[in-house]
């Protein structure tokens, strides 16, 4: 659950087309918010750890997203990449009355990122 202490409002969920992602920039940090066809919402860091591709432009499905540049895949719920040990940061997100809200404290955390970067 998101604690009510630092919630960041991203605005209406309608900004994110169904089945697609959309990038939001918060304090210089790019966050990709995804809205699945079955109503789930995910938020992950937008840049693919492989070569920095914009994940928000990727095709999503079955709780995963594929980077549009080289096809690296990431689980949207856990951040785990298909090419181990790649992973992306994840953020707690909820839809409240049609509004996207993410937990701002997650932004401040140190970046776990991938352990190895090519």
């Amino acid at each position: 659950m998101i604690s009510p202490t630092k919630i960041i409002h991203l605005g209406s969920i309608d900004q994110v087309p169904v089945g697609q992602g959309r990038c939001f920039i918060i304090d210089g940090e790019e966050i990709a918010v995804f809205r699945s066809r079955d109503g789930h919402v995910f938020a992950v860091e937008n840049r693919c750890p492989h070569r920095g591709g914009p994940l928000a432009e990727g095709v999503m499905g079955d709780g995963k997203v594929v980077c549009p540049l080289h096809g690296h895949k990431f689980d949207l719920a856990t951040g785990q990449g298909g090419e181990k040990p790649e992973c992306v940061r994840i953020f707690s997100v909820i839809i409240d009355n049609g509004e996207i809200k993410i937990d701002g404290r997650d932004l401040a955390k140190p970046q776990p990122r991938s352990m190895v970067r090519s």
Partner: protein
Amino acid sequence: MDKKKLVVVGNGMAGARVVEEILKRAPGRFDITMFGAEPYGNYNRILLSNVLNQTQEPQEIFLNPLTWYQENNITLHAGIKAFKIDRQRKVVLGGQVPPGILPYANNEEFLNKVEFIEEPYDQVIIATGSRPFVPPMEGFGGEGTFLFRTIDDCHAIAEYAQRCRKAAVIGGGLLGLEAARGLLTHNVEVTVIEAAGQLMNAQLDAEAGQLLRRTMEAMGIRVVTAAKTSKINFQDGRIASLSFADGTLVETDMVVVSAGIRPITEIAQASGIAVGKGIMCDDQMRTSDADIFTLGECTEHRGRLYGLVDPIWEQARVLADVISGANPNALYTGSKTGTKLKVMGVELISIGEKEPSLPSDEVVIYREPNHGIYKKLIIRDEKIHGAILLGDIEGGDILMQMFMRDEKVPAKRSELFFGSVKSAVLVNIADLPDNAQICNCNGVCKKEITDAIVEGECLTVAAVGKKTKAGKGCGSCRGLIAQLIESCVGKVSYDPSEHYYVPGIPLEKSQLVAEIKSRGLKSVSAVFAELAGGREDLDSKVGLASLLKTIWPKEYEDERDARFINDRVHANIQKDGTFSVVPRIYGGVTSPEELMRIAQAAVKYQVKMVKITGGQRIDLLGVKKEDLPAIWKDLGMPSGHAYTKAFRTCKSCVGTDFCRYGVGDSIRMAQEIERRFQGIESPHKMKLATAGCPRNCSEAYVKDIGAVAIEGGKWEIYVGGAAGSSVRKGDLLCTVDTHEEVLKYIGRFMEYYRQHAKYLERTYGFVERVGIDMLKKILIEDSLGICAQLDERIQQAVDAYKDPWKEAEIPAYPHQFEGPRLVEVLNEAENNG
């Protein structure tokens, strides 16, 4: 001069074909009447299994619609069977086939109950064809027993299979296996029962038959050979099992008999015309009565019966020459037969004899039993006398040509199987060092792959790709990966998923298309809901979107999330997340006005690079997503589709306007091609070119489709060329006279490729897989009778063209072209409540 009365008995492929040939030679010479026992116009029986497995609608396999008969003033007695020719009175007698009687039944009792029709004639052509052979057995004809011969049979089989778990097919020949393939799509367990000791007895020798059997079994079909069915056993009115002559049983819920065919000759017998195995004829297709001719499967010529299309088309040409007077001396001297088939996905070529018969016959055999590959040649007098290629038919087209043309074989027999040794690049993969890069796209070296095989237990090319990404770029190293698996563990495992059209739905393309059509699935999410248990498979979305658009050009429900980003915003994403914009420049010819608009746009939107592309266009690189609609409007040119799996561009050389060598107007041709086919989507991209002469300055020989002008005002059309990760010269599809014909055959090839290629299969792979000879037969000679359908479908796709850059005015969905959104973090979001 009075018209001669010509009566054609039989409205099948042979009967209709000979009438077409006659009309070509002597339109208006004859008053033509046709008798057809089936209540339809004529259709392409070869495609029946597609109706059974629902990849084609019945109306798609009709060769001549009923309007064809009207337009050519042909009287068609549909559903009326001719049963006797009264040669004294010169009339053909026919009677209506009542409902419930099979059109090809040998059961004329109904004739006592119906009124006769009489048609007077000057000449008669008998083309009654054949009927299925039902081996003697008890119980056939009861509920749940079927033949596999007509459209009605297909409907009845498909309908009944819904209520069955198990089905038995009696007959292990080509049609039997096709019936089995059709039944598999209806989710029944299929057993094929063959009386001979092996499958496909007519085409294969014992070893190849055994090999095919193993392959069939691996696909889930049960095979019983050397089994004579003696009885169909019923329980409570439904089929329970089959009994064989040796006392054994096989359980089944339904029975389809496809055990060969026998000529239909009763009308000849009833009319006193000579009949042997079939209705006998001379080299002019004339029966023992000089006014009565015969052709097709009912016909015996020089002791032989023919059941294949090519020989029968030859007969039709000769018969038309003779009867129309176009060439009264035309002779048919028999056909050499070779067949190229695909049985349940297994490729097969069978030519001439399957066994040697003289002591001097030389037999050459090559086998790879673990891969289902078997190749055998019988050489007599330094010529090919027979050949079987199973599992791998590479080089088969050349063998077929050598056989048909009676060419001498090379002294080195191995060249017949493997091509000239001189041209082959021999790489022994086991000798490569560990750090040798195998996959040049993803930079995977040999050691990574062998580790995946040995330690990761990846025994298929797909599994290696999943683990290492090797082979997942252009795919040209997949053969090397297979060799590595072989050298490590002995053999590549069979992975049916390699044949799936998309990974998330376990169906091959034809099966998938059939399911989509029969269930009327118009959107990607509908396909997932019905065929993938509701799971939205990530790796299948884009491929399905492409397929659906081809299947339903107009009704497709476009869900934009199933598209790759390029196809969402009609531009090509670059490594920095910006996009490239390539406007269409028809035939590579632009104007000062267009160039000025391009230059102004490049300045206004701070384009990072302006690049002349390989396809004779101009690429504006580094455009932000949110600027796309505006730059398109400023350019005022349509999309060049340089970002999608579709027709891309048609390059040209300067042709006849200025070049002193040009023999054809390659620029105008390229512009016509580009205007017609812009935006046509396909399994992979299609790059085209036209060349004004064979010097090939525009590289048309190595394009997916190339049109090359040659002396005499003609155009050669090449297909399957490549100059990317693979380099291949295209194969000559045909030579035509006019621009209109160039457009026609290009469109026909494109549509066939769209319908039959696997997703992401470029034309060079597709053309090699199908074979140029087969493509010529299908697309030029119309051997399957589908050309009209192809022409119509490509026209529909052309008509459905919309410039996607028009979405600059009205976006397809909200936020389509919006970039990242800046969010202001407000401190009042703090909530201490």
